[in-house]
């Protein structure tokens, strides 16, 4: 168990170090997220009330559209120079590769959100600071499910010629329950409704995360073996 934790830690550290040394991808994704937020504003605005009403949806679609770009990259750097084969040759459970990549991607997307969410609050006039704790919970739960399935499907999509279109095509239909739950919960919190339906949507997110974490963990072995 301890050995697995060390392997997971090593993969997280490796992926994040590679990311930190270039920074190019993080910066590009953050700016893209900002751009998407502005584009949604132009498409929906300039009526302030409409923008406030749909802010939850805009926020989550921006997370999905910008975050999806980070998953393929997580495997692409492994495919160069046969690094993936090396990684598979190391002893230990292959599931730790999945969990390691998942955690690295999770940290990456959460860091993007740390910049993006305050920006969204600014642009769409959201009462972010008043509800920071419940909003963070929803963001965390939604992002966990998103990154779990993203890391799983990217293990396949990144090795295809049509990777740019295949990843969203496989991933986004699967994320419909997560999108619905996260947007409803976010909207509920921003409207000050912390009980009732918001709690139910948060439970849906928890169930979604659990089911697909377990399913992807077991299916990953079949996807990665070659």
């Amino acid at each position, binding site marked *: 168990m301890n050995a697995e934790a060390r392997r997971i830690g090593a993969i997280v550290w490796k992926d994040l170090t590679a990311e930190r040394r270039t920074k190019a991808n993080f910066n590009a994704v953050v700016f893209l997220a900002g751009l998407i937020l502005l584009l949604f504003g132009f498409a929906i605005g300039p009526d302030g009330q409409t923008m406030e009403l749909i802010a939850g949806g805009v926020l989550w679609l921006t997370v999905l559209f910008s975050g999806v770009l980070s998953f393929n990259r997580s495997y692409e750097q492994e495919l160069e120079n046969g690094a993936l084969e090396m990684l598979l040759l190391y002893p230990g459970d292959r599931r730790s590769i999945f969990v390691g990549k998942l955690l690295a991607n999770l940290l990456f997307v959460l860091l993007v959100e740390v910049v993006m969410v305050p920006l969204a609050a600014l642009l769409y006039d959201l009462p972010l600071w008043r509800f920071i704790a419940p909003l963070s919970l929803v963001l965390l739960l939604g992002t966990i499910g998103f990154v779990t*399935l993203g890391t*799983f*499907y990217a293990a*396949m999509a990144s090795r*295809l*010629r*049509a990777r740019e279109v*295949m990843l969203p*095509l*496989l991933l986004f*239909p*699967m994320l*419909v*329950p997560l999108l*619905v*739950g996260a947007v*409803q919960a976010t909207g509920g919190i921003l409207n000050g409704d912390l009980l009732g*339906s918001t709690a*139910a949507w948060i439970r*849906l997110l928890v*169930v*979604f995360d659990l*089911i*697909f974490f377990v*399913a*992807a963990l077991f*299916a990953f072995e*079949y*996807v990665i*073996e*070659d």
Partner: protein
Amino acid sequence: MSNGGLLAEAHRQPHWLAPTGWLALVAVVAAQVTGFLISRPDRVMGNLQKIMYVHVPSAWVAMLGFFLVFVASMLYLWRRDLKYDRLAASATEVSVLFTGLTLALGSIWGRPTWGIWWTWDPRLTSTAIMLLIYVGYLALRSFTEDEERRARWSAAVGVLGFLNVPIVYFSVKWWRTLHQVQTVDVTGTIGSSYAISLIINSLAFMVLFAWLVGLRTHVAGLERQREAWLEEQALTGSEANV
């Protein structure tokens, strides 16, 4: 690798296939005759209601088909026999066809009933999402060349996709009820005289489904043989050149 046994085995159609095809034809014709001639038009919706005789069975059959994809995918991952992969892929193709039919028929029914082609009804919406999940499955297959890898990957996608079907349905349902929009409950309007036509159509669609999947699986086996044969030809050809 010897393909000799495989070649001889998969060459002939399974014995049940041709009779099932004829049975499917007879059943579908009989079901339409009952639907159009024998069953009475609905009091409120008239003959429009009769779309349900084909819409509902095709939705049921599609659902059953996706369950078959799930089972065949699990069997492949367990046994690693490519025949389960061919079954899963064939069931997906046929089920996607029936899902498309379900959506088209639902739309045609919805237009005069609700005055709109599309509504964000939980059943309709989750059917559309289901269609997209399995279109993704088929797209993944078409982009993956190595057959063993294709089988493993699509089995994984087939299993996860099926797990999501109830979650999608209930999440969309809750999403709708929160907004207090009531849709017409189709199942409530079905009386006992309609049930007979519905049951006959369902049976007919199931036989049709079994025949289509059986035929497609058989064709997939033939395609596999042809590829193996071509590969062998290419190999012996290059040897002769050397």
